[in-house]
């Protein structure tokens, strides 16, 4: 371990220390505010550290065999941190409603971030597996966190069992791959090529590898909630507290996707030397196509906002898979940029929507928000409604927003790789997606129910909640997110320039 290596690990180390210090802090004094501030500090410091590292990174740095720090991973980690900061801020508004002190929540949150951090820099199946499990186990603790919720047990049990199942599949896959290649590192030359010089390896041999790959992908696909491993997603999204859902939708997805890309691009090249990656590509297209179609279709008539977002996230991960479809190594860089840009757009939009969701939930005293509960928000709370509109348009990939540029990137990759099938499915999927996205936006504008309610003032239940009044800080962040989404949607180079490896 050289000093350089330690420097590279600094952001991760900060989080790890943060966890330990939090434990000590709890031992010293149990206070909601204190632990919140502490967590935020840790995240911010880690963010700063990663940013300075990101700027100064001169080359990819391998730290032991397990991890390799590169700028893509660091960027993704910054995204993770930003999302986590949003989660902590949101949870602070939620956790005050119950009487317990929620130290565990913040520790688990930090553990999630740690797991994500390990995932995004991992270069080895062991690191992947550990990061994966750290993420899952902590999330299991979080999804059912509010124990007084009726869905607490169900959510966490579902997540635990299914996640354990999926990770078992993944581990079996890793074992298969390992027995085939003889190495657990992504980037090492596989032993099968160095040790055994059986150049006449049969097709069956590759099939064995493929089975391993598929089993491995089951785990990844589960986490990314790619169809057909998506079934858990809406249930867990709905059952989990809103900030945790945000965590699931952002941190977990970013980290898993980054590690998938790292794995894939090392693997794809590896497979390329065997000159037969068609089947695996085919498998990936199945994932992508199924996710795009099933995700969007399921969201079509969904009323519950969280479930709707769950389904839409399935579709988005399907879109994102397109970046893996590159054929030539030259396009890998574009694929990375595309993925990171798309993820940024996705994360920003998701944060925006969940933020609104959390705020309105509080206002409605109802955790099961329907789309219709947002009725007429545009006329009551313009900035919040604008935030949703921008976010939804971004998710739908309409110009003026980041999401469009993200989609533009994806299409660039797909056109370059000539994946016409994927492109057509993407177009169809977007078309279906518009139905429910637009429905949400229209609900924001519609005023029909309000008019009815005026007539029935004596029924307090049907009264609309009071217009939301946001604290200046909230208002500020809302405006910031809106501006950011639109600004980056119009001048994407502000962000895109960061996504190019400087070396």
């Amino acid at each position, binding site marked *: 371990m050289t000093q350089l290596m330690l420097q590279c690990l600094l952001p991760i180390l900060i989080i790890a220390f943060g966890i330990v210090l939090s434990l000590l802090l709890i031992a010293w004094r149990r206070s909601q505010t204190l632990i919140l501030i502490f967590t935020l500090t840790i995240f911010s410091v880690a963010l700063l550290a990663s940013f300075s590292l990101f700027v100064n990174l001169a080359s990819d740095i391998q730290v032991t065999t397990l991890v390799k720090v590169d700028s893509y991973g660091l960027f993704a980690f910054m995204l993770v941190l930003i999302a986590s900061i949003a989660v902590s801020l949101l949870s602070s508004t939620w956790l005050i409603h119950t009487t317990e002190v929620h130290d565990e929540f913040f520790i688990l949150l930090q553990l999630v971030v740690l797991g994500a951090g390990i995932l995004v820099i991992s270069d080895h199946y062991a690191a992947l597996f550990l990061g994966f499990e750290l993420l899952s186990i902590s999330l299991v603790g979080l999804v059912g966190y509010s124990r007084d919720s009726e869905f607490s047990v169900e959510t966490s049990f579902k997540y635990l069992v299914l996640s354990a199942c999926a990770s078992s599949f993944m581990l079996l896959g890793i074992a298969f791959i390992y027995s085939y290649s003889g190495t657990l590192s992504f980037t090492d030359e596989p032993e099968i090529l160095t040790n055994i010089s059986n150049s006449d390896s049969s097709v069956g041999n590759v099939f064995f590898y493929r089975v391993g790959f598929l089993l491995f992908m089951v785990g990844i696909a589960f986490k990314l909630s790619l169809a057909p491993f998506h079934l858990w997603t809406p249930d867990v999204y709905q059952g989990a507290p809103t900030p945790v859902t945000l965590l699931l939708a952002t941190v977990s997805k970013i980290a898993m996707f980054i590690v998938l890309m790292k794995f894939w691009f090392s693997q794809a090249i590896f497979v390329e030397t065997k000159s037969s990656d068609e089947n695996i590509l085919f498998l990936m297209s199945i994932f992508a196509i199924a996710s795009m179609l099933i995700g969007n279709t399921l969201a079509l008539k969904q009323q519950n906002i969280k479930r709707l977002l769950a389904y839409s996230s399935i579709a988005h991960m399907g879109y994102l898979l397109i970046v893996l479809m590159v054929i030539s190594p030259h396009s890998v860089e574009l694929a990375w940029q595309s993925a990171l840009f798309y993820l940024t757009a996705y994360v920003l939009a998701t944060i925006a929507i969940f933020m609104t969701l959390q705020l309105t939930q509080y206002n409605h005293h109802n955790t099961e928000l329907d789309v219709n509960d947002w009725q007429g928000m545009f006329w009551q709370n313009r900035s919040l409604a604008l935030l949703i509109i921008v976010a939804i348009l971004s998710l739908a990939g*309409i110009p*003026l927003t980041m999401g469009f540029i993200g989609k533009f990137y994806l299409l660039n990759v797909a*056109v370059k790789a000539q994946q016409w099938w994927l492109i057509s499915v993407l177009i169809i999927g977007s078309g279906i997606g518009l139905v429910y996205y637009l429905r949400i936006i229209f609900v924001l504008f519609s005023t029909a129910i309000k008019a009815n309610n005026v007539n029935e003032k004596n029924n307090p239940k049907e009264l609309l909640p009071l217009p939301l009044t946001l604290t200046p800080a909230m208002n500020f962040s809302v405006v910031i997110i809106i501006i950011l989404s639109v600004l980056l949607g119009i001048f994407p180079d502000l962000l895109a320039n960061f996504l190019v490896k400087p070396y």
Partner: protein
Amino acid sequence: MSITLVMCGLLFGGALAWLLEGIKPQSARWVSLLTVLVIGVYFAIALNSTAYDFSTLQLLVRVAWIPSFHIEYALALDYLSIVLISLTLFLALICVLVSWQEINDKVGFYYFNLLASIAGIVGVFTAVDMFLFFFFWEVMLLPITALIAIWGHEDRHFAAIKFFIFTQVSSLIMLVAIIAMSFIHYQQTGQLSFLYQDWLILDLPLSLTQYLMLGFFIAFAVKLPSVPVHSWLPDAHTQAPTAGSVLLAGVLLKTGAYGLIRFVLQLFPQASLNFAPVAATLGVVSILYGAKMAFAQQDLKRLVAYSSISHMGFVMLALFSFNIIAYQGAILTLVAHGLSSAALFALAGMIYSRIHSRDLNNMGGFWLNTPRMGGFALAFCAAAFGLPGLANFVAEFLSLLGAYQRYPILTIIAAFGLIGSAIYGMVLFQSVFHGKRQVKPQAINDLSARELLVFSSLLTLLIFIGLYPNSLLDFFQSENIKLVLNNTAGVTK
């Protein structure tokens, strides 16, 4: 000459209207009226004071926008875009005026959307960087969708979603084609480029261009709209508020035709030539089908909407005839239909504001109370079925005359659309103004001064262009257009 200023001015005016509404409720209308007027005057003055020769495409602005993709902010003008922008600005005025009393809810936001969509449309007509073009193409949809979805009639959400999905899906196909073109540019020159002028000099293999052409074609055919992808239009038109319909019919459909002229035909001459029989057939089918469907409608706005489909069929047929006469006819059709359908939708709006129904069965005998409106309605119906002396006649005549040079049989079939248009025109006019009076006499008033202004300005233009079409056509006589068309024609030989 700054188109950017025009767009920003419109946006700014819209925003101002929105803001000021909170302070003084009635101000939004005046602000937007003033904005459109000022912008229109500015546009006219700026046009006259420039030294450019707009018979060819003149690049006005070219600034790097997204360097990582070599995307530029590039705007250009030629007579085609000038004519269409003028039409847009004129109809903007009409839109502001027809909404004057119709919209009483969220007026400021309404005018913001109206002006924003106009700004977007102006962008579409001027952008020559294809990414920028696509950007405007999409951006203009948002406010229009909002117009439909917020201030529309009973089924507005459905119509808005349908409208948006049709255009969005088709334009995504176009986006794919755009990206593919930029990659071809990359392959041939080693650099990405989205600039239209750069693309014109590309050497494209035919096998590829056919698909690329189709990508563009689909997007524009949906917007035009052409059968069989027209079905968003009746719904959108029917449900939109009057100004929305005016905007949709008057200008938005024109963007599809504009795209066909500027991009499909010019970028892919050979491919479009090969595709022309299909496109022309679609045009003919649109003409007849639109006319037939218009006849079957009971809803006044739906009727007019289908008549738009019929008219746009002429454009499609004319454009894919590769003939200078037909080309002029197509351009004239754009203007003429812009005016006449705008007028008819305005009429529908005025009737709706009086009897709160669009059902033809609830109308009849209006002439008794509203002879002025009836007179104008007659003139506009006559324009719709191509009465000589009004702009539409020259347009259709030129289109068909030119198209006949290339597709005799198709054109003869298309000419039956003239009968169809007479039928629906008669049905439209007579069911509203003739027959027994259906409502109480006091229910309907004749045109107010504002409405009179709207109608008379539209009619004046229709008659002027109808009798003196050279005022427009002179711009499209230039050698340059002939050159392009001859090039396309030359490919055949």
